């Protein structure tokens, strides 16, 4: 009996962020009658799918105690590689995308090798990777903003619809679910968390920290590649500067979702909620036609509020201690 109560409390705690999201939705739907329409919600999901897909793989870097700043450049490069393969080399789009994915995995592998085997901080490695991948993307694309006109099958990935919903949403949901299962129910997931929580203890328990970390960067780059492909198809464009700075959005989503940048804990579903939350804020501001100067300000405040609400228990405690301090004269 006691156990089920504890479980219920745990469940409530796990769902807290979700409740915050619902609250945000409620506020927005009061502010704008257009917010809570199916069309709009599907548009929001459509607009967060690039970040959402990136999150699904990116999350393993912070869980193992690292970071991957190269996801934005990686995504841009992926679009360019895919375009070169499809429209310059002339490979059919499916094998072309497979090759693109392989390239992404390889780059993630390099990131992983340099961080683990050479012991260089992940921040530096991936920031350097962000820089040189951008350069490579510029070089390969000759700095052009390339419009992708074909093949049809490829373009359908981004703008096609299935049962009235854009295909990228299905892709996002699929990779998020896959990543959730990977984290919660597989040996790799356990190892990733263990390495982030206490590398030495994990190692003494038979986990190979280096291999786990390398895998984390491979996953991160792979997800970024998928995001890049979706983005290229969605915008019908391959361009080296695309997705520049998206790493910050991804980190925001992941951290709002409850993943610690210090390693050892993480939630894929939380990251998705984080991404959707940011998407809702942006969408709400657009619907309200709020001048763009207000956007960063409102986003910052709302994220802070959301986290405070999510923090739950700490707030009353703080208020209580304040009251105690104020109401306790002479002490």
């Amino acid at each position: 009996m006691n156990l089920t109560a504890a479980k219920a409390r745990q469940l409530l705690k796990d769902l807290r962020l979700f409740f915050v999201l619902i609250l945000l939705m409620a506020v927005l739907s009061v502010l704008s009658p257009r917010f809570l329409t199916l069309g709009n919600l599907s548009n929001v999901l459509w607009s967060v799918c690039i970040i959402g897909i990136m999150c699904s793989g990116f999350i393993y870097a912070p869980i193992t105690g690292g970071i991957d700043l190269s996801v934005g450049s990686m995504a841009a490069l992926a679009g360019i590689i895919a375009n070169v393969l499809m429209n310059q080399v002339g490979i059919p789009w499916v094998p072309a995308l497979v090759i693109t994915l392989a390239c992404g995995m390889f780059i993630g592998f390099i990131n992983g090798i340099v961080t683990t085997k050479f012991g260089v901080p992940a921040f530096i490695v991936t920031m350097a990777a962000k820089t040189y991948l951008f350069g490579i993307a510029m070089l390969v694309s000759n700095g052009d903003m390339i419009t992708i006109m074909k093949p049809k099958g490829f373009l359908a990935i981004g703008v096609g619809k299935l049962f009235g919903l854009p295909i990228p949403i299905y892709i996002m949901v699929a990779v998020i679910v896959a990543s959730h299962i990977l984290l919660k129910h597989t040996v790799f997931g356990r190892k990733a968390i263990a390495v982030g929580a206490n590398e030495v203890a994990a190692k003494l328990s038979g986990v190979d920290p280096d291999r786990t970390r390398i895998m984390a960067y491979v996953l991160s780059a792979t997800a970024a590649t998928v995001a890049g492909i979706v983005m290229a198809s969605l915008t019908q464009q391959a361009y080296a500067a695309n997705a520049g700075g998206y790493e910050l959005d991804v980190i925001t989503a992941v951290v709002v979702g409850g993943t610690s940048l210090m390693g050892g804990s993480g939630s894929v579903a939380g990251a998705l909620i984080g991404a959707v939350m940011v998407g809702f804020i942006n969408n709400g501001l657009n619907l309200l036609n709020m001048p763009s100067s207000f956007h960063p300000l409102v986003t910052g405040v709302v994220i802070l509020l959301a986290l405070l609400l999510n923090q739950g228990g700490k707030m009353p405690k703080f208020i209580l201690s304040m009251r105690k301090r104020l109401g306790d004269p002479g002490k």
Partner: protein
Amino acid sequence: QTWKIGYLPSTVGQALTKAWGTGIDTTLKAAGNVQLQALDAQMKAETQVSMMDDFINQGYNLIILQPIDAAALTASVKKAESKGIPVITLNTDTLAPHFACVTMDDYGAGYLVGESIGKTLKGAGNVALIQSPPGALAGVEREKGFRASMAKLYPNIKIVGAQNGEWNKDKAIAIMNSFMQVNSQLDAVFAVNDNMAEGAAIAAESAGRLKNIMIWGFNGQMSTLAQIESGKVFGTAYTNAYDQGAIAAKLALEALKAGTKTFAKTQVVTVKPFLATKETVGQIPAASRW
């Protein structure tokens, strides 16, 4: 003697700045004896100022600059001119006098776009704007020109929304989607660059409202001209960027040959914008598309 010329656009990776570069390069190559170095300021005024300093320290003979901000680059232009290095600015003038400014009148072209939209809508309807980031001069001038023509000529056209698309195609898609959500009747959208106009077209097409919404861009890059031909984008304010680059290069050669060092007043050359729509886009020859 070999002349070293520096080319410093806001960023190298844009169709417009690339086309300028090509125009400059071909003209200078024909003159021989010139070495051109481009640098990428990545849209950051601070970086651009550092790069100006670097050109000056290295003793370049002339600098072709697209200032990211008029005020921010004024000090750098002053410094260059004081060291006897002539500066030619592209699109954005600075507060300090320098050798020349080759501009394509963003304000005027924005005004023309407004005029054209108003005419097509017969003076009534709902219009939305996809803006540039708040501080970006070129985008702001285009928007100002557009708003001026609306205010002056078409008081019955309502500007129902204006949002910052950060020059970015996928941001523009999201913004266009929200415009369409809020406004069941939306007649035209003016995006202050072509890239965002293309994004708006993708969103409108996906929502099945492309037929009812007239989308305008700005710049006239090759892909957008093609989209005008295929009817996705309605029109754009085209400038011949190759020509503009070539003009700057010719002026540069003039300055170098004359060896003039001080300039009391900036010589301003304005390149005329051309409104490209489905009817007129054919007049732009393939060689002039960038």
